[in-house]
């Protein structure tokens, strides 16, 4: 989920960079040396997991998993998501360098919000893991699609229909990502529960 180059005005691009820089700065401050490698490698897994394509009717969609990554990386989620987007922009021309800030914000802010909301729920086990996971995946993709559409609208009123179209195109992904996050969290909870509590 990303915005290409050349669409957004300077204010949105600069705002995206400022907010993402703040998120990354906060992450770097909290990131201890012993978590460096873990954050980096979870980010690699995030990058590789986007190769998975789920067939939906005649087409297929690829996973986003930003809520899932948010839960696993916590405070460093801006770093983990930002570097993955940087590499995609450099190597595959998905997104871009001028839009890197806003794209990082679009993906990482919902991940961070999901972490703040759902991580305590997961620790206290006050809700079944599957339900927490589904909400986490659904809400994070929902917020990302919303942010993406909103940033598109900052380019002008005339982008409204395009923004709505982009949001609508992402609705199946919310459900799929929710389901995958739910079951993957349940799986990790059984196989390696300490990953969810640290």
């Amino acid at each position, binding site marked *: 989920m990303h*915005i*290409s*180059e*050349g*669409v957004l*005005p300077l204010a949105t*691009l600069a705002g995206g960079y400022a907010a993402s820089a703040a998120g990354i700065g906060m992450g*770097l401050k909290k*990131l201890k*040396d*012993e978590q*460096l*490698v*873990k954050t*980096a*490698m*979870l980010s*690699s*897994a995030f*990058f*590789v*997991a986007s190769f*998975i*394509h789920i*067939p939906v*009717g005649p087409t297929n969609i690829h*996973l986003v*998993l930003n809520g*899932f990554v948010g839960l*696993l990386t916590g405070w460093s989620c801006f*770093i983990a998501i930002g*570097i*993955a987007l*940087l*590499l995609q*922009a*450099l*190597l*595959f*021309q*998905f997104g*871009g*360098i*001028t839009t890197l800030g806003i794209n990082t914000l679009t993906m990482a802010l919902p991940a961070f919000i999901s972490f703040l909301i759902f991580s305590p729920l997961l620790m206290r086990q006050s809700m079944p893991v599957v339900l927490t996971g589904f909400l986490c995946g659904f809400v994070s993709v929902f917020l990302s699609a919303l942010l993406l559409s909103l940033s598109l609208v900052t380019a002008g009123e*005339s*982008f409204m*229909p*395009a923004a709505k*179209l*982009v949001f609508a*195109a992402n609705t199946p992904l919310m459900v799929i990502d929710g*389901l995958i996050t*739910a*079951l*993957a969290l349940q*799986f*990790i909870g059984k*196989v*390696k529960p300490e*990953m969810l509590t640290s």
Partner: protein
Amino acid sequence: MQLEVFSQGRSLLHILDPRVKLLVYLPFILLTALSNSLVQVPASLATATTLAGIARIPGPRLFQRLAVVNLFMVFLWITLPFSIPGEPLWNAGPLMMSREGVTLPFLITLKANAIALYTISLPGTSTVMSLSHAMLHLRLPGKLVTVFYFFYRYISVIADEYARMLRMLQARGFHATTSIHTIKVYAFFTGMLFIKSHERSERVYNALLMRNFHGEFPLLAHFRLSRQDLIFSCFMSCLFLTIILL
């Protein structure tokens, strides 16, 4: 897995200093992204195309990449011509296409392609490792560059893991369909991929700790600016000013 498909070559752009390439790259993409002039944007696209030519990027691969870039443009071409009011160009019942509504997506398409060409021919012709070294020189936080280094280093390892797990699924007769079974399999697959990454990161960190790792790597190779780098940056600066003045 080969990710840096354009980084191998012997052209002028391949041997330039990555720091110079990044410093030339950033102003050009900013100018292109923010310009709304029907003269500047084509001029920038011409510059970018020339650079891709100098870098001798293989055609089929290049077009494949540009096709991806233009996929997002479809959304804009479907909606913008009808949502911008202006001089009517074509009428189809209640839908009206305006001249301004066609100019804008056209301009955006040119911009996106120009920036993609810059990205392929400037930073794309360096290896990611030398780019991250250059990022250190451009004052990015060292910790961030270290994380980026590990991230890049282990992508291919985890992609191998991914391919192995996928082979195992196929060996057991798994076939992806639109069903809850497929979702379940892929969810456990994703969970396993993250568990494996987590466990590997612990082993790697312990190995690093044993070798006295302090959060950053000593740099042994250093960049040196050559005459080509200086000539290239002077030439590109002049070009940049010309495009601004157009």
